[in-house]
């Protein structure tokens, strides 16, 4: 039989095979526009998800990426996660040089195998195998392949073809093969991209080609707010041995309540009695909740242990009660269980916690994949209260920037409902300084000041309470007032008013040689304690919109006393800058011959502005910085 194959045909086969390899893996043939501004080029990333049954799924990824420089090393991304419910069947990587010649082959056992969670998690069975390769020269190409079998079908990988800044994509495709059309899909930000898609009863597929790299710019919305993404979830699934089904958030909530949360709220009689005793005689449900929250904060600590049920089922309330620790799920469920005892309604809620980006749950698409954190909701006649149960110190009902101002999924008795969390906007995030500043003839400053912080500025500060003297001194000297040399702190008194959520700092401060003194004059900067120095980076051509993530409002009232032997002839002009990004004012007011008032106020408004606005914002900030450095000269009488 073999004899009959013509030698030419054989040669042809050999050629195409040989040729295709070289075309695939050589870096030289990457289109020029994909290399521009890129640290890496994803040559081809093919994800295939075969759903064979409710509890049987195979995921294969075939990925080829060319790394153009050292910064691009992080985009190799040859890693695969696994846990007790999954099994890596095949895993391999081959490295090619710029010409497409194979230089190294890495087998499954040569991948580095580590725990997939950070230090905050005490134990988790999720692990990751990754390729640890020292590049010899650039560019180089990594071809990576894995095949993973898993019995959990609750979480399907998303299609997220734009991997990051400075990475371009030559080809990325994604395909889910289904038993029957029992999946839901949500597509986002597809506009402006040429995406090939095909969806039928048994197959969902997407593909994209030749997407140029995106440059990172400061103060811009995050990439996943702009780049295309497709979410897929199965209506019927199994996760860690538990069957599940939902089509929307309402059903999702029912499923959670009736399976994963059911029977988790049992608490021992001794603790029940204790909690009931604590609230005896109190009627107001909110007052009761405050006492219970305080009880929980004193009793527990946050430790993450993630085993079983894909990390979504809380450990039972009586376990938390006995051990005194738990993760966000366990502590939230425990708090809810305690509130149940005292007759206060509360709901277990999923949320996406992110300090830098407020991410809401998709209104029209329910999936397990959304959310990374659990908090507690207390319905309060439309004025909902939210509790962060992993903190031993947070005030009752205070969320901070970790979970504020976004839609969370609340598991009510009527199923899942999306509700918006408390927000902290602009003037709510305030800091007021009242300072009495006395300058002496040597140019030294003696000052007494009171700083009152609220909202997210409270959030930034309330942990100061736990600092010791040494740490506080270093905080003020090296961080807050690092621009004041020779600053010493004589007294510190801090007050954390958790009831009102107000943090107050009372300080007495000296600064030696603050003023510059010469024969003729005495010069000093009027802004001693709250100098803004932020100027946005200059972009010759700005591409992305301007995003100001958080607004705030600072008002400083300074009374400045100059030495009696000096006089001020002219106080600087009052100034007011008003823009759509906020306002800035400074004003000077003579009190008497040796005293004047310097009042400064800055208010910044959060929001997304156009890219054209960026330069205006930069100018605004530049002017502020200049005015913040205003100095005055006083002369001898």
């Amino acid at each position, binding site marked *: 039989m073999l004899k009959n194959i013509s030698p030419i045909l054989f040669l042809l086969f050999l050629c195409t095979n040989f040729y295709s390899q070289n075309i695939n893996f050589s870096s030289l043939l990457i289109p020029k526009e994909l290399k521009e501004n890129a640290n890496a080029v994803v040559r081809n990333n093919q994800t295939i998800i075969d759903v064979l049954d409710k509890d049987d799924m195979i995921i294969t990824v075939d990925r080829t990426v060319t790394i153009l420089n050292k910064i691009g090393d992080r985009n190799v991304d040859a890693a695969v996660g696994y846990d007790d419910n999954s099994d890596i069947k095949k895993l391999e990587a081959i490295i090619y040089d710029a010409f497409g010649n194979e230089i190294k082959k890495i087998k499954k056992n040569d991948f580095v195998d580590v725990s997939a969670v950070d230090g905050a998690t005490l134990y988790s069975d999720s692990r990751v195998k990754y390729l640890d390769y020292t590049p010899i020269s650039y560019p180089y190409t990594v071809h990576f392949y894995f095949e993973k079998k898993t019995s959990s079908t609750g979480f399907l990988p998303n299609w997220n073809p734009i991997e990051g800044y400075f990475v371009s994509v030559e080809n990325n495709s994604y395909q889910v093969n289904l038993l029957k059309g029992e999946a839901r899909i949500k597509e986002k930000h597809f506009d402006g991209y040429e995406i090939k898609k095909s969806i039928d009863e048994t197959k969902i597929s997407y593909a994209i080609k030749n997407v140029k790299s995106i440059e990172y710019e400061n103060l811009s919305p995050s990439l996943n707010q702009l780049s295309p993404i497709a979410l897929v979830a199965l209506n019927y699934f199994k996760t860690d041995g538990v069957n599940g089904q939902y089509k929307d958030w309402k059903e999702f909530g029912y499923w959670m309540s009736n399976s994963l949360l059911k029977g988790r709220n049992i608490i021992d009689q001794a603790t029940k009695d204790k909690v009931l005793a604590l609230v005896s005689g109190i009627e107001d449900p909110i007052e009761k909740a405050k006492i219970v929250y305080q009880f929980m904060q004193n009793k527990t*600590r946050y430790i993450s242990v993630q085993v079983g049920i894909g990390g979504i089922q809380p450990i039972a309330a009586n376990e938390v009660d006995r051990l005194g620790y738990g993760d966000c799920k366990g502590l939230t469920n425990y708090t809810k269980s305690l509130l149940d005892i005292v007759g206060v309604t509360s709901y277990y809620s999923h949320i996406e916690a992110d300090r830098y980006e407020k991410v809401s749950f998709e209104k029209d698409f329910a999936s397990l994949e959304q959310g990374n954190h659990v908090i507690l909701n207390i319905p309060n006649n439309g004025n909902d209260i939210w509790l962060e149960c992993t903190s031993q110190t947070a005030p009752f009902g205070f969320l901070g920037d970790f979970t504020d101002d976004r839609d969370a999924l609340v598991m009510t008795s009527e199923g899942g409902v999306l509700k918006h969390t408390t927000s902290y906007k602009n003037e709510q995030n305030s800091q007021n300084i009242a300072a009495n500043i006395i300058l002496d003839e040597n140019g030294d400053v003696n000052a007494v000041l009171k700083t009152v912080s609220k909202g997210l500025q409270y959030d930034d500060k309330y942990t100061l309470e736990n600092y010791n003297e040494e740490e506080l001194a270093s905080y003020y000297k090296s961080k807050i007032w690092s621009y004041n040399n020779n600053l010493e702190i004589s007294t510190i008194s801090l007050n954390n008013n958790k009831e009102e959520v107000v943090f107050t700092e009372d300080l007495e401060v000296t600064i030696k040689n603050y003023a*510059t003194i010469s024969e003729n004059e005495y010069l000093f900067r009027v802004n001693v304690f709250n100098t803004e120095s932020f100027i946005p980076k200059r972009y010759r051509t700005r591409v992305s919109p301007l995003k100001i993530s958080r607004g705030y409002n600072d008002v400083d009232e300074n009374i400045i006393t100059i030495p009696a032997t000096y006089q001020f002839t002219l106080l600087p002009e009052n100034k007011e800058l008003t823009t759509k990004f906020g306002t800035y004012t400074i004003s000077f007011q003579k009190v008497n011959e040796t005293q004047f008032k310097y009042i400064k106020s800055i208010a910044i408004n959060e929001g997304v502005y156009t890219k054209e606005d960026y330069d205006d914002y930069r100018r605004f900030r530049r002017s502020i910085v200049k005015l913040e450095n205003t100095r005055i000269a006083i002369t001898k009488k």
Partner: protein
Amino acid sequence: MKKLILVAFLLLQISVNAQDYKFSKVSKEELNEQFYPLDSSASAAYLYKYRRSYFDYVQNEGFWLVTEVHERIKIYNKEGFEYATRLVNIYTPDRGDRESVANIKAYTYYLENKKVEKEKLEDEGIFKEQLDDNYTQVKITMPKIKEGCVLEIRYKIYSPYAEYIGDVNFQAGIPIKKYQTQIEVPEYYVYKKISKGYFNIKMETDSKSAAIGSLRFSTDVFKFEGDNIPPLKNNEPFVSNADNYRGGVKFELAETDFTSIGGDFKRFSSSWESVSDKIYKSSNFGGELDKTSYFKKDVTALLVDAKSEKEKLSLIFQFVKTKVKWNGNYGKYASKGVKDAYEENVGNAADINLMLTAMLRFAGLKADPVLVSSRGNGVPITPTLNGFNYVISIVNFADNTYALLDATEPYSLPNVLPVRALNWNGRIVKEDGSSSWIKLDTDKQASVENIIMFKFTDDFVGEGMIRTKFENLSALDFRSNYGHIKEEDLRAKYEEANGIEIDEFKLSNTLELAKPVLRMVKFMSEDLVEEISGKLYIEPLIFLTQHQNPFKLEERKYPVDFDSPWKNTNRVSFHIPKGYKVESLPETLAIGLPNNIGVFKYQVRQVGNQIKAVSILEFNSSLISAQDYPYLKDFYGKLVDKQSEKIVLIKE
């Protein structure tokens, strides 16, 4: 009589207050304690920290090392909760004998209604996690933690690697009230005990008799006992690795002597000669130096036109740097072997620098390997095998000069080593196995020189040029930090850092390693001058002015480590704007630190219609002791004050 009663009373007090450190004897006083008496800021403290390590004979296997640990930890506040999780790392290679943790017993004690209650640690609080192919982490997390509770933890580590006792560490991140460690070693083993760090406990020695069946022998007992040990903290700038300053004792096996029972005598390390010799004789070190066949052809071709020694050296050095990449691992022994490293183009420090040495020798140069203790490994004070963990190479020339080489760092030069290798002295090992010291710390100053020339436009916008020259370690740092970053991004960074706008930005010699890195920048800035009541105020060094003293803390425990001696020179000149004249200039200043460690010179002059400013700051030593810290702080304070003084111009 009165006195006597008082004494008796005092004695009574003492005996009442004397703590019972037996397991489970946690007292009410300990639970009631609100803060650590000697340091109220401590969030937790070891009330008791006990370790006992001893050799245990296992039939058919030989000696095992058993380490008993008993710790009693007081948690004062929530910050201290992290100490309620105990992490123990053990060596568990895929192939070979494994260590294990056993007999874990622990309780949390707390007060409930003024009564002492306790909660037992159950198995569910113990987690084992495989960290990598070689290590497993055992995590013990305590139940029922609350402010004020006391934890008591006891466990044993069984190690088949009896000879490896490891470090006895006196200090922890929190204070220790009572410290006891006891190391028991059979007479057949002799250890070198090397003290380390900035806190010391005197060692007491004792001995006792022991037996295995009918064999009787004596055991040496080394005891360390201390009270109220301060914590090790690292909150100071310019500290390379605070762990280097942790007080303790290293136990390093020096010899084993089984001759009395018919076995062998072996010496491990007693002098730097024998340490060096032992390393040299290892097949992963000396053996690798002898191999030449794998590179013979390539190197012969490489050197075909090379004539002088220096030329050969530079060709080979460059060849190794480009051919074999460093995988980030240290090591005094080759890990892959030079041949594989050469073929796979990747290796650890020993693979690379042993290969380099072999090639240099092949080319006829007098090259030898140099054993180094890297910065993270501490200073090599007493001879131990673990004292070295890195290798570089040296070439001696006929004119008595030499070149130290490290090919792991692509931007290094002869005698300009990367910071990791700049640690005191290294040990040259010659072909005949003899060895000697060589100073690694460099005398060459890491130097940055700026020259600025600018003028003011009519509306006081400054326009001009700044030329910067980086030399020695500064050039190496510049190249390795920025070598892979696009010029456009560097330009943007420079604009941001200095608050200027840049019209032209040019780097030269970034790849010509032998030459200094040069940066030429054409800039524009509106912020160089300040107008107050008709007068102009200008900082002489404009945007190069140092406004902040980096040393703000009152005290310093550890030396200030600058990595290398260094020098920073700034020269600025500009034309006085038309219609203005000088009212005052900052006065000249020249100050120094004791023993000529550092100098600052500063001068601002008017020359015709120009102002010329010069500022020179130099340090002749890379290390400044904690004793000299107050001088350094004051020195920098004066520098900052001086540089902040303004030139004052008035209308003519």
